[in-house]
């Protein structure tokens, strides 16, 4: 079985889907000849040609909007935003259009577009190449948002996104691209959108997170298990909008103690909604306050290494928060 990196998994998912279905095509900045600035589309231009791997003008609202139009025609576009931070000029097309096309046409028109965007920090990207921007979209019915935490999930969720009959935002972590590698046994796996993944069961505390933070949480949990015998029940949200309420409720009820983690700023983040679901449904099962660990409430991660480090949620902080909760 081959060991595959997170970014290779992404590329392979696109390649296989383009192979499988002629309607699938890619559009974005530098996705063609250059193979993407992170090389997520490397080789696809050579393989599928300039008509199916389209270098667009530098205009995100058009990348989204043209993709939406093509999706209405019956094509299956994968639009790449070069960095998640640069999805913002396309917000109107995504929220006013993609998210509402099915609803506003009373099921007459549909918009099966996938929008990929690399998010996340810790890569010396400074304010505008480090952001987690999922919270901006995570209140728009009609959209689905997935954020894979591993190569296997990256592949299976991207395939699901491409096959989904509705618009899906797919945020991939830049730092995970080459950091995370694993064997992928089932090449055909399509991971269901809308379902969280209980990564490991444990009786002491529940940790709920998504994206790259899952990796840190897993590592921290491993250490805590070895060092202190603390058993962590770890839920990877996978789909961060709409949330898998049932999985959240079950995971919390199992331990009565919960730690929620995001790399994003704290206020108004995905884990705020997770907390609200818990507060609504699990109140009498809780043995400790619903703890949130998140980035500080500053606009984004600065460039200077001192400041970037001070912003970024890391494995040590996660471990400490887990320990505190277990001891609560």
């Amino acid at each position, binding site marked *: 079985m081959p060991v595959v990196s997170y970014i290779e998994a992404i590329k392979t998912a696109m390649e296989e889907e383009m192979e499988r279905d002629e309607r699938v*095509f890619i559009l974005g900045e530098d996705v063609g000849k250059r193979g993407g600035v992170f090389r997520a589309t490397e080789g696809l231009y050579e393989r599928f040609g300039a*008509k*199916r791997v*389209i270098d*667009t*003008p530098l*205009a995100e*609202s*058009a990348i*989204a*909007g*043209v*993709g*939406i*139009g*093509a*999706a*209405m*025609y*019956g*094509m299956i*576009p994968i639009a790449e935003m070069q960095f998640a931070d640069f999805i913002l*000029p396309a917000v*109107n*097309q995504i929220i*006013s*259009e993609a998210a*509402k*096309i*099915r*609803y*506003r*046409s*009373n*099921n*007459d*028109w*549909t918009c099966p577009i996938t929008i990929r965007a690399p998010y996340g920090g810790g890569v010396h990207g400074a304010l505008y190449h480090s952001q987690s921007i999922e919270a901006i979209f995570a209140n728009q*019915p*009609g959209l*689905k948002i997935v954020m894979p935490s591993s190569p296997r999930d990256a592949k299976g969720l991207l395939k699901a996104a491409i096959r989904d*009959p*509705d618009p899906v935002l797919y945020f991939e972590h830049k730092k995970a691209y080459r950091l995370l590698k694993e064997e992928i046994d089932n090449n055909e796996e399509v991971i269901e959108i809308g379902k969280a993944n209980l990564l490991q069961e444990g009786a002491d505390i529940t940790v709920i997170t998504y994206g790259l933070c899952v990796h840190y949480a897993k590592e921290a949990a491993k250490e805590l298990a070895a060092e202190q015998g603390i058993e962590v029940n770890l839920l990877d949200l996978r789909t961060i909008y709409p949330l898998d309420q049932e999985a959240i409720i079950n995971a919390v009820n199992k331990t009565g103690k919960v730690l929620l983690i995001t790399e994003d700023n704290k206020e108004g983040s995905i884990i705020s909604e997770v907390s609200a679901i818990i507060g609504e449904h699990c109140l009498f099962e809780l043995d400790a306050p619903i703890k949130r660990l998140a980035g500080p409430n500053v606009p984004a991660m600065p460039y200077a290494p001192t400041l970037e480090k001070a912003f970024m949620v890391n494995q040590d902080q996660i471990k400490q928060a887990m320990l505190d909760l277990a001891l609560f």
Partner: protein
Amino acid sequence: MSKHTELGLSEEEVLEMYRIMLTARRVDERMWLLNRAGKIPFVVSCQGQEVQQVAASFALNREKDYSAPYYRDVGVVLALGMSIKELMLQAFAKAEDPNSGGRQMPGHFGSRKLRMLTGSSPVTTQVPHAVGIGLACQMNNDDAIAFVTLGEGSSNQGDFHEGANFAAVHKLPVIIMVENNQYAISVALNEQVACEKISDRAIGYGMHGETVDGNDPFAVYKAVKQAADRAREGTGPSLIEAVSYRLTPHSSDDDDRTYRSEQEVKQAKENDGLISFREYLIAHNILTEENEREMEQTIKSLIDEATDYADAAPYASPDTLLDGVYQ
């Protein structure tokens, strides 16, 4: 040779064009009556723009092409196959409305059957959509083209620029028609743009640009026909500006006396393209006293019937509120 024969249009075709323009006008007039009578909460009008809307639509292949009309395009959607009854159903926001089942305000057209993209309220988002249709047609060697309209005010939105540029770079089969009716709600043309013609923007995209008198059906037909031919030949998109005047307030919520003179509106009404086209048809013996009377009567009875039907039709059940968010 008369203008219409020069363009290869038969007498039946020009009469049909006129019939649809007149239908659009009469439907719109009825909407205002219904609004003032408290029967429907909102109207946004086509009046003054019917000629360009219908003439342009006739220059398309109405069996095959795609459209992304904007909210004033009653003329376009009638020409492309929407019925009066369907228009009334959407005005009354009834469940049977094919555009949105009463979910959207009137003027938000859309019909998959008619290859008419579903439209929203934020202006100009439809331009990139039409470009996406053009791209898909090109990719699939589909002979169809995409026709998209918008107001001149809307041509100042970023999406206009981004969409037009994308279409031009890829030589896509797209026709962008700006319906310049001189106003964006209260804002007059000279406060919206400083260029001489909106079609001057075409040069900055490297596409064909052309301004025509929106009150002249033959000028509009010709420009759009040529644009359609170019698009189908693979020589790329066109920007057509059709100049006319908005004869009504912006919508039933507007009071246009706060920003323009009644004198100005009165004068524009004299230049109404519907009047001159009618005169042309009479002069060419295509419209006669008799068939005109019949035409008006038929339209009226269709509108009456549609109004009664739509008025009586049920609203969507509250139970359907959650339908159609996802598949």
